[in-house]
């Protein structure tokens, strides 16, 4: 029953204003469905908002958190690798050493970073440029 109602209601409300209007005017007179309906409508409202913010800020969040985690990465310890290819048993990859390289750039050790991977400096410049682009882009409004 829950699923059927959800399927019935989900595609109808395309904008947030329609949803808000429909919450205060339930068009079913069956009172025992009312709490369920309210719950589902609030839920859809919530998911639409979350989806909007997710679409807008996912990439920005990813790049910023990646740079932060690489800054605080401990390099000199013997830790298991995070590389997917290493787990599969492949030891040669064109991006090998990039994490250590970016870590060295963020701590301003440029020659060490060039030794790990020659594209570390370029990568940091490009990623910072992308973060700038993403954080100053014009915000679109749905509807």
């Amino acid at each position, binding site marked *: 029953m829950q699923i059927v109602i959800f399927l019935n209601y989900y595609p109808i409300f395309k904008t947030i204003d329609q949803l808000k209007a429909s919450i205060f005017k339930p068009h079913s007179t069956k009172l025992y469905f009312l709490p369920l309906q309210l719950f589902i409508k609030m839920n859809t409202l919530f998911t639409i908002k979350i989806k909007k913010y997710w*679409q807008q800020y996912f990439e920005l969040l990813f790049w910023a958190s990646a740079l932060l985690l690489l800054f605080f990465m401990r390099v000199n310890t013997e830790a298991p690798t995070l590389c*997917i*290819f290493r787990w599969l048993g492949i030891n040669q990859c*064109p991006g090998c050493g*990039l994490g250590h390289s970016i870590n060295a750039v963020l701590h301003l050790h440029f020659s060490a970073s060039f030794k790990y991977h020659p*594209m570390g400096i370029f*990568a940091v410049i490009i990623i910072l440029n992308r973060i700038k682009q993403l954080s100053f882009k014009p915000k679109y409004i749905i*509807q």
Partner: protein
Amino acid sequence: MNTNLIALIPSIEPDELAYLQAFTKDLTEDKLHLFISLYNNKRKKTDTILICCLLGFVGVAGVHRFVTGQVGMGILYFFTGGLCLIGTVVDIINHKSLTFEFNQKMAMEAMGMVKGF
């Protein structure tokens, strides 16, 4: 009337439709025709971007970044195997908003060209 014309754009996303409706509110019908014909040539479908992303698993990473006009990112992805496959997976998750961002830019360009006539 305007909404019907905008719905003629092939495989349009709901977000894009809403954005274009607000963006082309002030245009007359002739100019809207011109705008749509210009915009149709410039825009990219989400499917093509997704397929370009998937090329990263074959070994040619970063094609989608070149296609959407981010050349620096494209070079970085190409020479590091899509940031060791992590960047490729992230862009597959994120391909809809990448396309939408590119299409918004193209809508701006097309609008500039239409206003120039």
